[in-house]
């Protein structure tokens, strides 16, 4: 076992890998949350539930149609995305004119309903899902053993984040989104179909969350409560990163995942709390988060 300064290198690296994987999930989810908040003005408390639904989609697809992980990777985000679009059209769009508070309460209520329905069908205990054959196994890097699946998750998440960032910052569609986020009324008066854009954006955010869920299925226990467990950290990431910036969410998510991993190695009991310590410190220095702008 390699030891440097009393630190067990394989142990540390393995925690960092796990941390980076978590960070990738944080990035995917916080990006979706930030985009939704930017355009809709709603803090989507149902985001964790959408992540959970993505994970359960993989189970359900396997159970009822025999479609494997690779199919779920493509289908689950689409299914959950469509579900998100329906939610937006029927329920969420009715509260845009109200105080922010009601957005939080409504989406929280929705998440309770989704969780309890899934829990009714599948119970509370976690279920396992095996990573696909092609991605199982480990690579021996010498100073650590790197699980193939985890490495692949990190890379894929980064690619998805990068593509999202490119679409939002550099394309025509992205300019519609940025314009509608900045000034929805005038953007509509200039001819852009903002209501449709809103539905599309919410669906996209839901799809991103579901993608996270699918990727998480082989590494975490699939349980109805998995959304609740992750959503608090994701909110912390968005608050630390600041709501204004996609790049900010991605960077903050990854960094926080790493920091959590480090904390887990050096002082495990604090690993759940370290995010909040950082949040309080950051907000004391930069009230709108690291990359945020006053709204």
């Amino acid at each position, binding site marked *: 076992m390699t030891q440097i300064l009393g630190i067990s290198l394989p142990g540390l690296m393995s925690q960092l890998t796990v941390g980076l994987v978590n960070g990738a999930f944080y990035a995917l989810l916080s990006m979706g949350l930030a985009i939704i908040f930017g355009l809709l003005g709603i803090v989507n408390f149902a985001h964790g539930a959408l992540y959970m639904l993505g994970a359960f989609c993989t189970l359900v697809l396997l159970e009822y149609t025999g479609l494997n992980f690779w199919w779920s990777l493509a289908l689950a985000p689409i299914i959950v995305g469509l579900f998100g679009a329906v939610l937006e059209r029927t329920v969420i769009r009715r509260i845009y004119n109200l105080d922010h508070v009601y957005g939080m309460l409504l989406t929280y209520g929705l998440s309770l309903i989704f969780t309890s329905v899934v829990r009714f069908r599948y119970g509370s205990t976690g279920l396992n899902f095996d990573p696909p054959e092609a991605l199982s196994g480990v690579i021996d890097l010498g100073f650590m053993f790197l699980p193939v699946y985890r490495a692949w998750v990190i890379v894929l998440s980064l690619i998805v984040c990068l593509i999202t960032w490119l679409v939002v910052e550099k394309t025509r569609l992205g300019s519609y989104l940025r314009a509608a986020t*900045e000034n929805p009324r005038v953007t*509509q*008066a200039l001819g852009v179909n903002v209501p449709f854009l809103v539905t599309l954006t919410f669906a996209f955010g839901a799809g991103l969350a579901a993608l996270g869920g699918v990727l998480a299925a082989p590494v975490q226990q699939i349980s109805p409560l998995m959304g609740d467990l992750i959503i608090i950290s994701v909110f912390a990431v968005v608050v630390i990163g600041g709501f204004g910036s996609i790049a900010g969410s991605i960077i903050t998510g990854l960094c926080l995942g790493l920091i959590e991993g480090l904390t887990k190695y050096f002082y495990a009991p604090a690993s759940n709390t370290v995010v909040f310590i950082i949040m309080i410190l950051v907000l004391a220095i930069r009230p709108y988060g690291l990359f945020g702008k006053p709204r």
Partner: protein
Amino acid sequence: MTKIPSECLRISGLQAYYGESHVLHGVNLEVNAGECVVLLGRNGAGRTTILRSIVGLVTRRLGSITFNGRETVSLAPHKIARLGIGYCPEERAIYSSLSCEENLLLPPVVAEGGMTLEEIYRLFPNLLERRHSQGTRLSGGEQQMLAMARILRTGARLLLLDEISEGLAPVIVQRLGEVIMSLKASGYTILLVEQNFHFATPMADRVYVVENGTIALEMSQSDIPKQETLLRQYLGV
């Protein structure tokens, strides 16, 4: 080519609300195709609200607004714009999160016959120079040109221009006046809200004076010199 009806815009009995606030109390006006009509009046009279009501940016509208014969008073803003109405807001609304060129390309093309990007850059060379700058880094005059340029690209034939001369240097105001005259010559229909009497009235075919949320006075270009004292009374000048 189908004949466009001579009447382009007709507003009858328009009432408008911002929240609970009743701002327009029954406005009646028409704009004919190819005309340039100016709305004059004091600050707070309701001129901007009339333009906003046409594009649907107020909380509630009652009455009737027809555009080329089509009733629009209950349509959503993006559908109204797509009928061929271009809106240039008082605050210009240049987006800070978009570059100059992205701002220009934002409003979708709604009809044929709009200016191409090259034609726009020929008309407003400054915008070509600054096309990659962040929208809000442009000067006041450039932002105003950008706000006008982007609706010229869409093919909209009715232009709603709100206080375009506000806060700009005389040289730029003159340039804008030339642009408007050439647009008028090309057959655009223009509804102009203006504070600057001397800038606006020479271009107007007709003038409405708005006061307390209604139309107080209407006159044609030929009557303006004779009625100047009356007009000045209404405008508090």
